[in-house]
């Protein structure tokens, strides 16, 4: 555990010592605010709800989270420091979990910095704070799932750009699985129970349950297992590819 902490601290410090962190946070805040106020027309709706804010998260994370996570293993493999890391007395699990958690905490910090949104809506009306709370939880879990996917693809390529593109495509697929257009398309040639099963794997549908104010254990378990599965795959890929 202490090694996990050491890796986590090192990674997290790495984010804040480079301009990437600040660029990311500023873009994230501008984009969430921009989408909420201009695209969703937050004021025009005249509803004291942060729905117009959270609804954009799956789409913003699509690009921003892979940008945060793409370097995690790519860089390590490219610069050869992976050899250093895995000849120190650190287990594979500690290293993977440490890196993942560092990036997750970082995204969490960016997410927490959207707190003025809560004040705004609280000032304008009386929103359901329970829904806001569960939505934040959902958004954080969603970001974790995106990040776990990114970790996996980051381990696959030494090239950060390739890692980024593959992660975006994979995350996009995971979101689209639950979108109406896509399920309709699947329904056109697959039995309903199969297309239902496929859309049940979507990030989108599970995120929506949090937006309805539910802390649905199934959705929580879903995100946690996605993260667990992706990180396990990450370990397998690393074992296979670390020598290249």
């Amino acid at each position, binding site marked *: 555990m202490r090694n996990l902490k050491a890796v986590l601290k090192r990674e997290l*410090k790495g984010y804040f010592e480079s301009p990437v962190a600040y660029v990311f946070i500023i873009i994230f805040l501008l984009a969430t605010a921009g989408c909420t106020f201009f695209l969703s027309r937050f004021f025009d709706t005249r509803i004291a709800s942060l729905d117009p804010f959270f609804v954009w998260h799956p789409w913003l994370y699509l690009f921003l989270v892979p940008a945060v996570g793409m370097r995690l293993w790519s860089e390590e493999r490219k610069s050869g420091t992976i050899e*250093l890391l895995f*000849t*120190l*007395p650190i287990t594979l699990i500690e290293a993977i979990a440490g890196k993942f958690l560092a990036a997750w905490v970082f995204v969490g910090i960016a997410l927490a910095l959207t707190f003025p949104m809560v004040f705004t809506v609280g000032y304008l009306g009386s929103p359901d704070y329970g829904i806001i709370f569960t939505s934040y939880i959902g958004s954080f879990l969603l970001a974790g799932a995106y990040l776990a996917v990114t970790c996996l693809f980051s381990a696959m390529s030494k090239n950060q750009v390739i890692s980024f593109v593959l992660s975006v495509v994979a995350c996009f697929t995971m979101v689209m699985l639950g979108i109406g257009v896509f399920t309709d398309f699947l329904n056109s040639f697959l039995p309903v129970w199969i297309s239902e099963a496929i859309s049940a794997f979507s990030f989108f549908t599970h995120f929506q349950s949090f937006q309805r104010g539910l802390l649905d254990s199934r959705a929580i378990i879903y995100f946690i297992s996605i993260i667990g599965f992706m990180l396990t795959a990450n370990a397998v890929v690393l074992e296979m590819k670390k*020598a290249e």
Partner: protein
Amino acid sequence: MIAVESLAKSFGSIRAVDGINFSVDKGEILGFLGPNGAGKSTTMKMITTFLPPTSGTARIANFDIWENPLEVRAKIGYLPESAPSYRDMNVYDFLMFTAEVRGYDGEERRSRVVRMLETCNLKEVAWQLIDTLSKGYRQRVGFAQALLHDPEYLILDEPTDGLDPNQKQEVRALIRRMGREKCIILSTHILEEVEAVCSRAIIIDSGRIVADGTPEALRSRSALHGAVTLELIGAKDRDAFAELQKIEGVEKVVELTDEDKPGAPAVDNDAEKPGKSSLRVRLFPKKGVAIAQETARFIHQRNLEVDAFTLEKGDLNEVFYNLTRGGQA
């Protein structure tokens, strides 16, 4: 003790390391020699548990690389090839990170890092990003990282690579000093380094050990070993040639041209001694016969004017070349 037992590694159909066996004791400095791609680095990566072997195993202080990889890592200080380090960190933070992972806390952690900064002459760059450092400094950062926990076992992959001649000397002195109480394996393709540092050398080629012994023992496998090189002044007539042939134990006598003389430009030689004819010859002994004494006596008897008398120790380059090009030394 490091014991390597029929260690092998294949990458696809390529047999990078092909069943090697050796062991290294405390107080030994083992030099790993071999052409590029011979399997030196791969072997080191397996001993340090970075790469799983295809078959075979290694034990470090009785910890098996399969069964106790973390204990093995804790025992070893490892400097990977080209000394990778986190370039986005400064030297101090990087060493603090390795110290933390090595299990040091608080004051102990700080004092170890500070000591390493001193030992490796890194004090003046302690707060600089590793990315901004020169190759020599980065190599030293790698050294500091490997030595931080004062490991009993050191594995150094081309430790002097990229250093300037002075730094090379420093590092070699450091390794020799540490070699007294540690067990060190280092790889290199610089043969002088083996002679300067190592108490034992292993030459590996295409994943197999082709020679294992002290640098002196390896050198003695050279055809040059035991030969005597003479520079005779005023030996205009070639009679001397025939005479030298008669010395007991001499197999053959060869006249050396200037190209054979290592490190001496031909022009220089002629310019210094204009008109003076000197003859440079090399006397090769019969197998296993020492000819130095006989030669000296002969020179004395004949009152030959000798400018230089060298007893050749043998050339490691030649041995290396013969062993790794399919020839026989």
